[in-house]
């Protein structure tokens, strides 16, 4: 591709990003804002691809363009008018209005100043000579990392502490979500077209997740992208009104959520016992250990993101299928073809009363 064409592409991409961000933030309509944000995520994925960051583009395509949009849309849908619109208090006097304008200008000026400082710092960073030291260190040690994709090597080997703590952050977030209340009420059973979509999309998503996990060792991909793709399968099942969405129940669920952190700690501590530094893999075993950790991390990330979409503690269904194994996440997704019937008013009421708000309202 010649330089001029690339330049035109860059200008158009940047302009699209800026105008979408501005449009998403300018509107007062929550749903419009969310849809514009989803479009922003789509364009951002293309921008990452253009900047030769395919790993990031994969994550953005799965999360930015898909999952976080689904998450925000579910929030908009649940509280159509009231809660999320916050405290828009009417302005009582002219004095208040004046104060508000002053505040707005102050904040705007602050933000502009911040952007200017950031831009200045950025030009310094671009000019600094030592910027390649880290990249060179990564490529020098890549052969000993057990994988050939440098981003996976950084995430799971060179900076494995970061990823361990990141999984701990995810665990904390999901525990917070659990503590805040039960899950949102479920979805109505979808029509035949939606069902047809579910029937092929869910297996393909699961397959794609497995593929991304596997290629992550030598090509863009890995546990994060795979986990997000797997979570998308659960989200689609939930949206289609399926009763089971592949999440295990009870203690098994707790094990799956903690699997990423737990596997990291098990591997790290075992290495410590064997006389190596914490998470300092022996080069011969590094590839296998990384894959092991990534499998657990993928399941934990997928479960976390599905629970994030549910928005709370999942309610146990009336019959608790015993004996689901922690690894059975994707398998039980495939098995779950049980449908709920919208005409069944009893189950309809029972389901809606599970929602946190409805619990106090109607039951």
């Amino acid at each position, binding site marked *: 591709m010649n330089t001029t064409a690339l330049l035109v592409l860059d200008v158009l991409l940047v302009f699209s990003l800026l105008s979408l961000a501005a449009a998403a933030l300018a509107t007062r309509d929550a749903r419009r804002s969310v849809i514009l944000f989803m479009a922003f995520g789509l364009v951002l994925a293309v921008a990452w691809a253009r900047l030769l960051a395919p790993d990031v583009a994969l994550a953005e395509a799965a999360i930015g363009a898909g999952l976080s949009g689904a998450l925000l849309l579910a929030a908009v849908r649940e509280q159509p008018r009231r809660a999320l619109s916050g405290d828009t208090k009417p302005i009582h006097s002219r004095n208040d209005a004046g104060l508000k304008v002053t505040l707005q200008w102050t904040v705007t000026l602050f933000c502009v100043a911040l952007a200017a400082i950031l831009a200045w710092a950025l030009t310094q960073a671009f000019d600094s000579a030592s910027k390649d030291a880290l990249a060179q260190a990564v490529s020098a040690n890549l052969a000993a990392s057990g994988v050939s994709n440098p981003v996976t090597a950084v995430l799971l080997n060179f900076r494995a502490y970061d990823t361990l703590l990141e999984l701990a952050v995810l665990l904390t977030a999901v525990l917070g979500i659990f503590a805040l209340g039960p899950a949102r009420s479920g979805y109505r059973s979808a029509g035949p*077209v939606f069902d047809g979509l579910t029937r092929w999309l869910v297996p393909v998503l699961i397959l794609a997740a497995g593929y991304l996990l596997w290629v992550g060792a030598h090509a863009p991909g890995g546990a994060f992208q795979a986990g997000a793709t797997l979570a998308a399968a659960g989200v689609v099942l939930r949206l289609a009104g399926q009763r089971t969405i592949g999440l295990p129940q009870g203690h098994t669920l707790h094990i799956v959520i903690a699997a990423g952190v737990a596997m990291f700690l098990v591997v790290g501590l075992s290495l410590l016992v064997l006389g190596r530094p914490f998470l300092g893999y022996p080069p011969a075993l590094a590839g296998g250990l990384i894959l092991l950790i990534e499998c657990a991390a993928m399941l934990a990330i997928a479960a976390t993101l599905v629970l994030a979409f549910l928005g709370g503690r999942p309610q146990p269904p009336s019959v608790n299928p015993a004996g689901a194994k922690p690894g059975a996440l994707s398998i039980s997704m495939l098995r779950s073809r049980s449908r709920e019937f919208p005409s069944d008013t009893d189950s309809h009421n029972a389901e809606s009363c599970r929602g946190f708000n409805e619990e106090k309202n109607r039951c």
Partner: protein
Amino acid sequence: MIDAMASLLIVSGLGFYLAGSIGLLRLPDLYSRLHALTKADNLGLGLLTAGLALHAQDLLIALKLVLIWLAVLAASAASAHLIAQHARRQETPS
């Protein structure tokens, strides 16, 4: 020869893409815009992937391209239907 065919396919795919997006902008209401969009999805991307697949050295890559086209084909048909259904529901509250 193959080069020329690939170029022809790609160029006609681009034509459908542009026609689809101009239709999306110019047509008066959601249902007719839906009609414009599906052309871009199905034929535009179909021709584009066919052209690129002819050019791919690797058979695996060519297969992946076809897979992507099939996925978009099935997904866009379903999502166009769902969006239309959603719009209908909003017009006539049940």
